[in-house]
């Protein structure tokens, strides 16, 4: 297995509280890893590690064989449950933001031909997530589903090596959630993404993932429950089911441009 991301004996401790212990994990390129587990089992901590928001207390995290810097960077995209789009920019400029940051370090803005090229790229990405007609809409006028589509477009325009999803569909209505499942599956397939998704919804984890990780504590000391951390207790590969499910999804007629 060609590992895109490897965690080697990773521990996370806050004071004497152990959150994660002995996490050994390889995430292959083009896989879709769902991470589930009870509350407080360190799902979010694991995601923050992968994101670079915090560093492990012990152990190493390698991305493409290189140690991961403990800081967020453009090689890892993220979609949170909420607040991950910029309220002061319309949809187009939300997507444009990432391109402008890379190409205009000083002004943070592009002009002329470079701007037109970047805008074309941003528009194409909006079409891909089904927001083609909503380029000039501000997030405050969007529904929750549209905002999440925008957040995905924003992240994907940077072509991240790894896309991290933190309960991305948790705040959406069931119908819209189903639409979003179709969208993220299609983007994952078409763009060859590698995705790690934290979710509370076990059905969602199994429906979308090629692999389901369950985080929980292996051991528990009733007198000092904080002294043992969580680790991956189940690691289930779903490769065979995956192939049939994709075939099933693409045979259903779905309005991919709806603006829920």
């Amino acid at each position, binding site marked *: 297995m060609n590992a895109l991301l490897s965690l080697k004996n990773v521990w996370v401790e806050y004071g004497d509280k152990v959150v994660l212990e002995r996490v050994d994990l390889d995430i292959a390129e083009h896989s879709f890893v769902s991470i589930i587990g009870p509350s407080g089992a360190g799902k979010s901590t694991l995601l923050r590690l992968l*994101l670079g*928001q915090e560093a492990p207390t012990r152990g190493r995290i390698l991305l493409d064989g290189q140690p991961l810097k403990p*800081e*967020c*960077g*453009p090689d*890892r*995209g*993220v979609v*949170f449950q*909420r*607040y*991950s*789009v*910029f*309220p*002061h*920019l319309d949809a187009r400029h939300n997507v444009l*933001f*990432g391109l*402008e*940051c*890379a190409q205009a*370090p*000083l*002004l*943070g*803005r592009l002009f002329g031909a470079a701007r037109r090229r970047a805008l074309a790229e941003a528009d194409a990405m909006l079409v891909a997530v089904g927001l083609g007609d909503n380029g000039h809409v*501000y997030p*405050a*006028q969007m529904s929750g589903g549209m905002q999440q589509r925008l*957040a995905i477009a*924003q*992240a994907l325009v*940077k072509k*991240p090596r790894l896309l991290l999803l933190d309960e991305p569909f948790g705040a959406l209505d069931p119908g819209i959630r189903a639409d979003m499942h179709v969208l993220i599956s299609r983007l994952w397939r078409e763009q060859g993404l590698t995705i790690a998704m934290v979710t509370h919804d076990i059905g969602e984890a199994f429906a979308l993932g090629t692999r389901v990780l369950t985080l929980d504590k292996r051991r528990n000391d009733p007198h000092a429950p904080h002294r043992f951390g969580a680790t991956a207790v189940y690691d289930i590969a779903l490769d065979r089911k995956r192939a049939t499910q994709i075939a099933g999804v693409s045979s259903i007629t779905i309005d991919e441009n709806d603006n829920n």
Partner: protein
Amino acid sequence: MRLVNIRPTRRNAVLLGLAPLLLLVLAYLIASASRHAINPADKILPTPAAMAAAMYSLVAVPDPLSGDLLFWADTAASLSRLGLGLGISTLSALIVGLVLGLIPGVRATFGPLVTIIAVIPPIALLPILFIIFGLGEAAKVALIVIGILPFMIRDIAAHVEALPAEQLVKAQTLGASSWQLALRVALPQAMPRLIQAVRLSLGPAWVFLISAEAIASDVGLGYRIFLVRRYLSMDIILPYVAWITLLAIVMDWALQQVSKRGFAWSHAR
């Protein structure tokens, strides 16, 4: 129908809002007329005619000593002091507030200092300002700045600090540097808040301006009303107060328009 559910129409709301103002004016006119019926030389509640006559000599007749039209000279002097004080405060609050709100190290270093300065009563510093800057324009502008700047800095810093962490993380995953975070994420979102802070600071700014002018000045709206107080010239004081009120309302309205036009996204919900 319940009282809480009875909503006036737009037109009725305007009429309702005007009613207390008109009643107040009417009450003044009646009180003024009744005082003048007893004592035609009454100075405490001057009639509109007396106010117009007194103001005419300030607005349209050049002062025999200086040759200035005193009303306009007062207005220009006060507005330039106020504008300078507000301008310096706004610009500094934006820059300092952004840096304080965005960079944890700077916040840890200077946050407590700003908090302490903010609780010093600015008028208590006026003697120091007069000693340092003399009795000229600088001391008056400095009083306005010291009076409103700490509040504005704290307001902007708190607003920037309260931006959702998700947003800042997201921007970093999109490749934003600290500079780009400040310029493209924090600054535009701080702007509408800055305008609100300026609107809220207008009241205190006028207070500090008039205080400074009352104590040491030779021209200005505050100077004039404190000067003519010695002669019980209510016929000048009242129009001046009305004029200051009008200026304050226009400034507030203009700032609100700037916010609505320039930052429509923040008025969306």
